[in-house]
């Protein structure tokens, strides 16, 4: 049986995948335990790295470019690779319109992280 931290990582990976699938960007996310969540199609050009579950939960509760930007300058998250692609990707969050089903799945996953 999976431990609590394994279940949290699995939920976080599920949440990241839901977000990435909607954005279609060459961006991967590395979770606080080192797990890499890559986009479904194509090789990622930049990796967004989380060092703590706390920061992950805070940002994914309401992901916006402003919040990612502020976390980046505060060194709460790191970028490895093409920084331009990271900025292109976070901008997509401005226009992202997820359906109700996806949003519910996201919230469900977020609550389990």
């Amino acid at each position: 049986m999976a431990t609590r931290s394994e279940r949290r990582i699995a939920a976080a990976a599920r949440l990241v995948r839901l977000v990435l699938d909607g954005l279609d960007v060459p961006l991967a996310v590395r979770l606080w335990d080192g797990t890499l969540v890559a986009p479904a199609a194509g090789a990622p050009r930049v990796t967004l790295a989380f060092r703590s579950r706390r920061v992950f939960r805070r940002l994914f509760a309401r992901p916006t470019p402003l919040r990612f930007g502020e976390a980046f300058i505060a060194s709460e998250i790191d970028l490895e690779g093409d920084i331009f692609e990271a900025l292109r990707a976070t901008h997509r969050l401005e226009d992202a319109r997820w359906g109700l089903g996806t949003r519910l799945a996201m919230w469900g996953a977020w609550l389990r992280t």
Partner: protein
Amino acid sequence: MSRRAERDVAFHYDVSNEFYALFLDPRMVYTCAYYRRPDAGLATAQEDKLELVCRKLQLAPGERLLDLGCGWGALALWAAERWGVEVHGVTLSAAQATWAAEAARRAGLAGRVRIERADWRDVAPEKPYDKIAAIGLIEHVGRARHPAYFAQVHRLLTPGGLFLNHGITCRAGARRTSEMAFLQRHVFPGGELAPLDAIVGGIERAGFEIVDVEDLRPHYARTTRQWVERLQANAERARALVGERVYRTYLAYLAGASVAFDEGWIALHQVVATRRGAVRTPATREAVYALPWRTTVDRAS
């Protein structure tokens, strides 16, 4: 002089001259370059931009040029040295004013270039200028003050004189994004973009005739990309000078700007206008491009 404007300008431009030197070209031009040749490096493209501005303003020896928001003085020096004009450069940043005045003195141009630390509202010459350039100032003015700003430029310019306004524009009807909030909070307090129609309309309503409009958007995408690459190449020095937070703030803002120009979310427009009076503008654009370009050979940069 507005205290608030002073504080806002100091927040960004007084960070550290040494820090800006890590990613700008040797002339410290902190605005969109002009890549006239596809293989041009940053230093050449910035000189070509200075040259383009002087050409669009049709500078002639002995004329008086006001450079509003003169930054580190690159245009003032270029215009005085290559075009033989008398330049009054104005910036609200103390760090820039000191640097620019020193650069003019070193170049032996102190007699023809006067740098003053002042607000655009407080410029009060004995007589109007023949030409006025405002490169990258409009973004700091604030839309509420556009009418006062264009009226001031109109007052400062002689009838028939030329005004070149170079600035970042947003799309008409663009909604406020959270990226703009990031910029206002962490990078450019007091900064505000306007769409081209507001700028052109504002200039016209102040009593000008618009004579030329050019979009340099792809050039700014490339300029900002080069700044990011240079800053990243000097990461250690940058961190030592300004700390991790400011280093990361500039990386994010410049890379974000490059993407925004690349995608067309924002643009860079040069607008040339003449104060109504005796019309001195040529009938075609050939006058701007006909002269041989006098900029230096390309340097690897």
